[in-house]
Each structure stands twice: as structure tokens, then as C-alpha cells.
């Protein structure tokens, strides 16, 4: 097989770096509103029928949305094996908590309305809340940690060794900057959930969602700007030093890395990336206005814009770093040293080029079939078949 030689290893790595972004953004745009609706559930919906309306706005689609998360795991495994190995074993207990949330959530959706007992339903409602709110927060906390660097190093055989006691891998994640990053992601997804409910629900559920969603939009923008300022003054960055090749074997130990005073020097080197945070901030503010004004379709689009801007700004700022090591910068994972082989990247690109357009097409069709508001009548008339 020589077909893969048609594309340079370097180009494939950059493409897969952007596909990593596409997956994360795809996950946040789709599953994000599921998590947001979960986090909003106890506050926007008080009675059983209100809750069922809120739940059924995501009822038919959460399963497909969740696949973005699973595909994210699979794609990182296939395209960035060292990242997969280091991050999931490194954030071990945090990963467990996220997994637990993603395990309980499907069950809560499916089983909640299968019994009439109010206590049964209340338990599942709070499970939906926790399984939306906790990952929404933890994803941001993880990003906050990655920005600051994570304490790990490689042995000569490329075993990953994590520094520190086991509980520090969880408690240690919760430093102030990372918590701020967690607030950004939490508020952003609550905003997104609010925008979704504005589109899909009516009456009191929609009103409450708009109210809480608009507050969340302001919090998200504020926390995001604050985190940006913090990065300008208090967070060190990383850079590769010396001669290096961008199409060499994926071995972090072949690179020299040192710390710099800030990540934000990237904006001086590549001024065009400023567009990403701008999209994030403007999108967030527009979402706020849209929620206030009660605009439905456009608000959801603004919210998507905000998420797109915020997530891509993190990736673009750190490029080419993916996961720096704070304790041994040389072990840092970058675009140039932690990908799969040339052949595997190419094959995965072919597979993605075939299936991703199909997925987008049939997902769009499903959303179209399900277009329209979920009403009280929908829920009560189909009491057996809906959630």
C-alpha cells in the first residue's frame, strides 16, 4: 500500500488535529444540549408533565448525540494513541466519574417513565441532573488542566508514569484556574441547553429555560474573558525548541520542549486566530440577547457559534501542543509526536471522509422528522411510548 504517500505525514497530522477539534465541537454541539437540559431539568420543570416535556425534547436524539462522545474516544485511540493512553490513565478517577455519568444517563432517560411511583421518577430526574451537570463541569476542568500542563513523564520504553499520589489525580485537578475553566464549560452547556429548550418547548418550561439560559450565557462569557486575562498574566505556556521534524516517528522523547511565560504569544505569531475567541464572545452575547428576546432558531445557532469559538480558541492557542507535561516538558504530547502512523492516519481519514458526510446527512434527516415543539399533548397521548 503506497496510496497514503500521496498525502504528507505532516498534513495528515494537521488534518487529524483539526478533526479532533471537529469531534469535540460536534460532541459539545449535540450532546452539549443534552447535558444542558439535564442540568436545567429540576429548575425549568417542576411538575411531572413539565419534566416529561423537557426530557422528551432530547428523548429521541440523545442516543445519537452520545455517540459523539464514544467516537471521540475511538478516534483519539486510533489517531492519537499516546494521548489516549496518557490522558485517560492520568485523569483516572475523573474519567470514572464521567463514565459513571454517561452510563447512568441512558438508563435514566429510558427507565424514568416506566413506573408511576413519584419517588422512582424523582431519583431518575436527579440522576439526569447529575449526569448532565457533573460532566459539563469536569470537561472544562480537564481542559483547564491540559492548558496548564499535566504531571507525567515517559520511560525509555514509553510507559507513562504519573507523578503524585493517586488521590491528587482527582483533587489535584481542582486548582482555581481549572475550576474557572469548568465554570466556562458548565455555563456554556447550560446556555446551550436553554437555547435548545427555547426551540423545543413552550410555556412555562420555555420561559424558565430562557431566564436561566440567559444568565448562563453571561456567566459563560464573563468566565471565558476572565480565563483569557488570567492566561495573559498567570499561566505559563510551552514551546518546542531546537531542530525538529514534523513528519518523523511519533516519539515524544525525540523532542525538546521548554516553558514560556504565556500561551498567548500565539496571537502575536498567528494573529488570524484572534477570530476564534471573538466568535466565542460575540456568539455568547448574541445568545444572551436571543434568549431575552425569545428568538428560537437563531438563538440556537448563536449558541452553537459561541461553543465553536470557545473550543477552537483553546486548540488554536495551544497548537502544536495537545497535552503538555508540567513535570517533564520533554514528554509533552504535540501534533508532531503523538499521532498514529502515516498509514493509519490515512486510512482513518478515508473512513471519515466516507462516513462523516453520511452521518451528518442522516442525523439532519432525523432532526427534520422530529422538527417541532414537544407539547403536553404529545406526552400524554403517547404516554407508553415516550419517556
Amino acid at each position, binding site marked *: *500500500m503506497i496510496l497514503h504517500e500521496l498525502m504528507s505525514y505532516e498534513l495528515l497530522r494537521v488534518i487529524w488535529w483539526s478533526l479532533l477539534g471537529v469531534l469535540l465541537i460536534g460532541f459539545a454541539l449535540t450532546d452539549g444540549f443534552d447535558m444542558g437540559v439535564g442540568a436545567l431539568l429540576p429548575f425549568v420543570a417542576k411538575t411531572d408533565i413539565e419534566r416529561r416535556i423537557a426530557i422528551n425534547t432530547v428523548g*429521541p*436524539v440523545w*442516543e*445519537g448525540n*452520545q*455517540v459523539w462522545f*464514544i*467516537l471521540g*474516544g*475511538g*478516534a483519539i*485511540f*486510533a*489517531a492519537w*494513541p*499516546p494521548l*489516549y*493512553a*496518557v490522558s*485517560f*490513565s492520568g485523569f*483516572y*478517577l475523573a*474519567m*470514572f466519574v464521567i*463514565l459513571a455519568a*454517561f*452510563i*447512568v444517563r*441512558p*438508563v435514566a*432517560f429510558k*427507565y424514568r417513565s416506566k413506573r408511576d411511583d413519584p419517588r422512582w421518577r424523582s431519583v431518575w430526574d436527579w440522576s439526569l441532573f447529575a449526569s448532565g451537570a457533573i460532566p459539563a463541569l469536569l470537561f472544562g476542568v480537564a481542559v483547564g488542566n491540559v492548558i496548564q500542563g499535566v504531571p507525567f513523564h515517559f520511560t525509555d520504553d*514509553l510507559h*507513562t508514569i*504519573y507523578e503524585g499520589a*493517586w488521590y491528587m*489525580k482527582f483533587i489535584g485537578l481542582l486548582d482555581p484556574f481549572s475550576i474557572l475553566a469548568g465554570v466556562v464549560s458548565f455555563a456554556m452547556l447550560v446556555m446551550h441547553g436553554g437555547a435548545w429548550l427555547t426551540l423545543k418547548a413552550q410555556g412555562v418550561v420555555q420561559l424558565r429555560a430562557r431566564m436561566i439560559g440567559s444568565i448562563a450565557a453571561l456567566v459563560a462569557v464573563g468566565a471565558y474573558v476572565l480565563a483569557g486575562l488570567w492566561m495573559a498574566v498567570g499561566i505559563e505556556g510551552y514551546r518546542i525548541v531546537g531542530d525538529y521534524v514534523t513528519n518523523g516517528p511519533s*516519539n515524544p522523547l*525525540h523532542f525538546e520542549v521548554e516553558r514560556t511565560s504565556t500561551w498567548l504569544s500565539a496571537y502575536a505569531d498567528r494573529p488570524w486566530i484572534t477570530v476564534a475567541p471573538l466568535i466565542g464572545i460575540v456568539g455568547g452575547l448574541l445568545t444572551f440577547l436571543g434568549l431575552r428576546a425569545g428568538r428560537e432558531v437563531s438563538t440556537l445557532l448563536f449558541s452553537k457559534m459561541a461553543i465553536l469559538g470557545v473550543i477552537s480558541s483553546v486548540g488554536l492557542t495551544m497548537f502544536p501542543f495537545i497535552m503538555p507535561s508540567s513535570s517533564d516538558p520533554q514528554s509533552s504530547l504535540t501534533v508532531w509526536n503523538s499521532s*498514529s*502512523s502515516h*498509514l*493509519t492516519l490515512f*486510512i*482513518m481519514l478515508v*473512513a*471519515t471522509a466516507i*462516513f*462523516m458526510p453520511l*452521518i451528518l446527512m*442522516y*442525523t439532519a434527516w*432525523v432532526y427534520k*422528522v*422530529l422538527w417541532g415543539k414537544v407539547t403536553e399533548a404529545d406526552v400524554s*397521548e403517547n404516554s*407508553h*411510548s415516550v419517556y
Partner: protein
Amino acid sequence: MEFGIVELSRLQFAVTVMYHFLFVPLTLGLSILVAIMETVYVMTNRPIWRQMTKFWGMLFGINFVLGVATGITMEFQFGMNWSYYSHYVGDIFGAPLAIEGLMAFFLEATFVGLFFFGWDKLSKVAHLTVAWLVAIGSNFSALWILIANGWMQNPVGAEFNPMTMRMEMTDFFEVLFNEVAQAKFVHTVSAGYVTASVFVIGVSAWYLLRDRHVELARRSITVGAAFGLAAAFSVVLLGDESGYSATHSQKMKLAAIEAMWETHEAPAPFNLVGFPDQEARETHYAIEIPWAMGLIGTRSLTTEIPGINDLVAQAEDRIRSGLIAYEALLEVRENRDATDPTVMATFEEHSADLGFAFLLKKYVDNPLDATEAQILAASNDTVPMVWPLFWAFRLMVGLGFGFIATMLYFFYRASFKGMNFPRPALHLAVWMIPAPWIAAELGWFVAEFGRQPWTVDGVLPTAMSVSALSMTEVALTLAGFVIFYTILFIVEMGLMLKYIRKGPFQDVEETEAWNTRHNDRLAGRKNPDSIAMPAE
């Protein structure tokens, strides 16, 4: 055996994967059975088939969701608990996993929502298409995960790269068309079809015994028996195919399953039963079927199948060869910019045995320091524990033949005796419900336990594959998964039983309401037939 991080991680993997596999077989089979029922409904337009589709579809949904939920753990657990494995073989193993997501998970998960929520939003044919897409999606996911698993059993299409210290793919199509993977795929999905058929027949038999939902139950048994009969034959035949492919890819596993200590003159006999003794390396009280092993394993009368003792001796040779590769590897890594070509040549000559040198890492940090005794111990480690494999295999095969007999019987009664089933047979069918699950779990056990001490056969030892985690962390998450899964399992069983007891919905009011809405919508459509009809 010392119980350390490796054993704990293995236990966690075994628990989570076997738990996951409680739900998967039923998903695989029931998705297809439901789609078949809906096809009959669309073709005949008889409401009973719609009712069957909805009823079995609902049970499918209760089961499906736990398959999804427990599957999430699997996708991430490699990175969490097996990070060196992930680094070492991710280049090959990750690809089918990601393609599984792209090709299968999205398909089934996107359409499963529409299956449940789309009854009055879609035309009949469109809804039927959705049902089939869910079934195809589920079955595709089995294909890709078994390509990944097949590669662990028979690592083709890849080679070790000393620069990146990992295995890298050299030929995707070899990985894709790996004979082990293909045989395993058909064997596994057939097992799923048998599971669903036994489930459908069992639940229906329970209704017949109570004289409830007779029409639905009889038809369900007919569908289940026809489908199950084909599947039961397929599962046994493809199981045999798996055995045949193991003859050249996993000789040790085959010999261990068979408890064949010495190489026997061809054609070897098959030990029907016996008591394997690992210490003494012999099988007591064995009852042999002459020639059978040779015929199953090699499909010839002249090809020899190596016994365990000979394989251990071969492993010892490969460890010594692996040590040469390891020594050369260190030199290659040391001078990566200017590697001596002769060293490189030495490495390449022996690199296929590198994994065998890693077997010594269990005893010494640097395999080159290993003593003769340690080399001997490591070669003995290549023998998996024999008696559990020996018995698990026999139990599984026995159940497999049992399924063929059951399906034949029910198929005969359904086709030629006017769907009349004697009560003892119905009782038997109810009691048989757990049997396919037992067989499926045994099958996994044989495949995975039989691969030990390797995660990737001959390439990477299990002991080396784990993450550098503390016992506390793994114990915590293991406890978490066990508690969590047990609660979910109890809840699931409770709901399953509740809805089976309740039976198909025959809610008059709901049907009336549905009819009214349906008629309202029909008034505005030119082609009324294109909208699904309600159940009775």
C-alpha cells in the same frame, strides 16, 4: 498467584466486558427479529404483527440501553487501565474501534430513537427502514469490534517500529480480512441470534402456558424457531471454523482447550471428557474419540497438532530469540540517528520474537539479566490454566448442540403441527432462557482466558499492558463498577419482568386516541396507505 495491579485490572476488564456481554447478544438478535416482524407487518398489513413489533421492540429497548451504557466503559477502559497496551497497539487496534463508531454506533443510535418515537411521524415503509438500519448498525458494530479482537488473537498486517516503540499497521486489508476475525464475527452474531430466539421462544412459551396473548406468542415462536434454527447451525459451524483457524494462529490455546499435553501422531483423538492436571501435565480419566481432534483442527488425517509440551519448548526458543531482538533494540534506540546496519539486521531477524522477551519483565526489569530458571519459568507461563478452558469449552459446545435440538423441535412443531406445542416443551423453553447467555459468556471466557498470558498473542504480554496505577484506584473503580452495574442490572431485570408480565399493550383508549389523530392526518394526505396503521 500473587494478586497485584495486573490481576486487579484483568478482573476489572473481565467483569465489565462480561457484564456488557449480558446485553449485547440479545441486542444483536432481537434487533433483527423485530425488523423481521415489522417486515411481515408491512407486507401483510395485519395488526398482530405490528403489535408483535412494538412488544418485542419495547423489550429490545430496555435491553439495548444497558448495552449502550455498559459499552461506554469498554471504549475508554483501554486508555484508563491498559495504557501501555493502548500506546503499543493503538495504531492498529484503535482503527476498527473508531470505524465502529463511524459506521455502526451512529447508525444504530441515531435511528433507535426514531424507531421508538417515529411510529406516527413516518410512513410504514420509512419506519421499517429505520428498524432495519438499527439492526444493521448493531450487527456492524459486532463486525468491527471483532476485527479488533481478532487482531489480538492473530496479529496480522502489522510490525514493530523501534523508533516509536510500538506496533504499527502495514496492511489494513490483512487486519480487515483476518481469518480469525471473520470466523469470530459470524460465530458471535449467530450466538446473538440464538440468544434472541431462545428469549423470544421462552417468553412466548410462558404466555402460552398461561393462555395469554396466544396469537402473538405462537407467531413469535414460529419466527424465533425458524431464525434460531439457522442461527444455531451457524453458531456451531462457525465455532468449528474458529477452532480450525486457531490451529495455525493460536496453537497453544487449541492445545489447552483440548488438554493435549503431548503432540499426538496425526490424526489426534479428541478428549471428550477428562480431568486435566496442570502440575503433572496429563489428563486423568480421559475418554477419547479417535481421530476427531485431527479432523476438527486440521481437516486432514495427516497434519500433526502440536501438544503443550512441544509448544513450551518452542516458546523457550522464541524467548531466547526475543532476547537477541531486545538487545539489538536497545542499541537501535541508543543510536537512532546512525544505526549500525548489522545491528538493525539482527533486530529485524528476531523482532517477531520480541514479545517473548517481554514475558521476562514479570521477573526482572531488564530481560537481559534473566537467569536460566526465569527463562524456563517464562516459557511455562505461556500455558494458560487448562482445566477452566477445557470445561468451559465443553459446556459451551454441549449447549450449542442443545440449541440445535431445541430449535429443530420447535421449528417442526411450528411448521408441521399447526403451531401446537406440548406443555412440557413450553416449560423447557422457559427454563432454557438463561442457557444462551451462559454459552455466550463461556465463549468469551474461552477466547480471552485462552489467550493468556498475552493481550496480543505473541506480541505483548498482559503483565506489561497495564497502566501505572495504584491498587487503590483500580480497586475503587472496580468496586464502583460492580455496585453501579449490579444496581442497573437489578433495575433492568425488574423492568423486563414487569413488562413481560404486563404483556403487549392492548389499551383501548390509547388505540382510539391514536386512531382519531391518525384519521385527522389522513384527511390531509393524498396517499393514505403510506401512514402506519395503529395496532388493534
